């Protein structure tokens, strides 16, 4: 029993990483109806920016804030330059665009900062949290930040005019334009916010996985999985999905014999697919009835 509780706790700790990434995934999905395959690379790049700023002597929280701004603006610029012109293109073209973006960011980061791993500091330290060997203060901080982000997003979408406009633009673009909402800028805003949230995810993940250009590969897959399990339309669903995936992955690794680190990922994915087959809109997604 104790093993079980411990593994669940450890799972929640890693789940926080996925939850954070899933939040960013959901933000973009809401805005443009696509999964951004380059999201992880964008987060990685932002994290390098933060690292670089700290190398130049800027203290952690200053670098954090500057990185947030940089990422927000960067997200908007990418949308305006690359994806706005593709707005009417078929889905496949979009996906190709994401792959191109992935290749470019990864390669530029590799050239600028090379592929050796770098230490990234945690603002929360890494001592045991409340004397527990399973959760460090950093992981507890990560869970805290994720939950705060979730609350902030909830308030933003529920109680601010811009949040309301973004929701309207995401659900019914044509009606949104008819009440005077500039839907195209709402999409750009969605990109900016997603990039900023992604940068937070990156900065929180980096102390755990170490900073290097390929650090987000695995994390993004889990982030997608979490977002999909959560139904892709709800930030709360994404966060719960993140924790579920984290816990699940840990339990599979512990209780199913012969599952080493290598097989954790495929098994987690296979089970997520099973969830989807049973509940195609995820656990928290809206049911949408299709019409011809």
């Amino acid at each position, binding site marked *: 029993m104790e093993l079980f509780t411990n593994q669940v706790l450890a799972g929640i700790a890693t789940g926080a990483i996925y939850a954070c990434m899933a939040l960013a995934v959901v933000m973009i999905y809401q805005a443009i109806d*696509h999964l951004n395959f380059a999201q992880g690379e964008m987060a990685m790049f932002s994290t390098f920016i933060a690292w670089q700023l700290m190398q130049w002597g800027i203290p952690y929280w200053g670098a954090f804030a500057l990185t947030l701004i940089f990422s927000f603006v960067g997200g908007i610029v990418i949308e305006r330059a690359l994806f706005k012109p593709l707005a009417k293109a*078929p889905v496949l073209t979009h996906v*190709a665009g994401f792959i*191109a973006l992935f290749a470019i960011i990864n390669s530029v980061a590799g050239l600028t900062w090379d592929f050796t791993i770098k230490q990234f500091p945690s603002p929360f330290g890494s001592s045991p949290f409340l004397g527990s060997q399973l959760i460090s203060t950093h992981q507890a901080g990560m869970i805290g930040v994720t939950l705060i982000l979730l609350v902030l997003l909830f308030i933003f979408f529920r109680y601010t005019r811009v949040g309301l406009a973004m929701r309207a633009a995401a659900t019914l673009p044509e009606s949104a334009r008819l009440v005077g909402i500039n839907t195209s800028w709402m999409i750009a805003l969605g990109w900016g916010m997603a990039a900023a949230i992604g940068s937070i995810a990156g900065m929180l993940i980096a102390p755990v996985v170490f900073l290097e250009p390929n650090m987000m590969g695995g994390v993004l897959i889990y982030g997608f999985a979490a977002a999909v399990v959560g139904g892709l339309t709800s930030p709360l669903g994404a966060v719960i999905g993140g924790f579920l995936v984290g816990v699940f992955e840990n339990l599979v690794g512990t209780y199913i014999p012969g599952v080493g680190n290598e097989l954790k990922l495929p098994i987690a994915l296979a089970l997520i697919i099973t969830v989807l087959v049973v509940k195609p809109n995820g656990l928290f997604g809206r049911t949408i009835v299709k019409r011809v």
Partner: protein
Amino acid sequence: MSTVQDVSTAPVVAAVPKKAMALGPLASLIILALLIVTPLFVKNFIIFQMTMWLIYAIAVLALNILTGASGQFSLGQSAFYALGAYTSAILMEHVGVNYALTLPVAGLVCFIAGFLFGLPALRLSGIYLALATFALAVAMPQLLKLGVFEHWTGGVQGLVVTKPDAPEILASLGLKVSQDMWLYFFTLAVTILIYIFSVNLLKSRSGRAMMAIRDNEIAASAMGVDVSLYKTLAFGVSAGITGVAGGLGAIAVQFVAPDGYTIQLAIALFLGVVVGGVGWLPGSLAGAAFIVFVPNIAEHISKGLSGAVFGVILIIIIFLLPNGARQLAYLAQGLIGKLRKH
């Protein structure tokens, strides 16, 4: 309570006119002639690259049948490619089957695997299907490494495959054909067979049913098309053809190993379809050329930034030719038409 709303059905692919899926006879003959003559004048290494080009063209064509014709989306083709490659390799090395005979087996095994995978995938569409197939691609290398299969698969080490010689009958006729050259022409023959099969498949009742599903699934089922059957069938056929490509790939590279079939291969095949033109079968050649040669070109332009150069080239293609090589072919056709008039 469920909310009913009109789903913005941005099509997975822009609708493709049916007759546009193949090439005219003249253009086909010219391309065929070029494919036959070119290898006679180039070095062995280039012949090998051309062989790989054809093999990838088959795999791209297979995905094109799935995406272009039935409107489904797969990021998991590398898994079927791997399955085909291992089937051929194991049959050749462990059982001693002739290389040519392993290909139909690889195709059949993958057809069945694809059909079975297509069954649960039926319940998924769009993004969800992409994720499911993606998971398959990610899982495949790990599955191939499993200790249980190690006796057959060679585990992490993989298997070495013997390169076939040209049939002796050619030598007795006084033709000296190198191994590379022979493999190239063998691959070309397989490619042509598969191309003809695919074109006819799309022209057939089944092909039309698939395209009806692609254009409007609900309307198609209202017209009495058995949507589940044709969607899984498309998965099966696509996987089967990919398996043949995988088998050929194993023979050409003389080696199979789990890490040769990662998600990167699946992404490359996907890009091949986009660059070649979704739903346009001859575009598979152009798409495959992109996969085989553009990374080399990018490497050549800038070693450190080859990924970025690759990305930029891809973006330029998407922006200038959103419909891929098909668009280029139409432009050329229009131009030739104009020249003729003058």
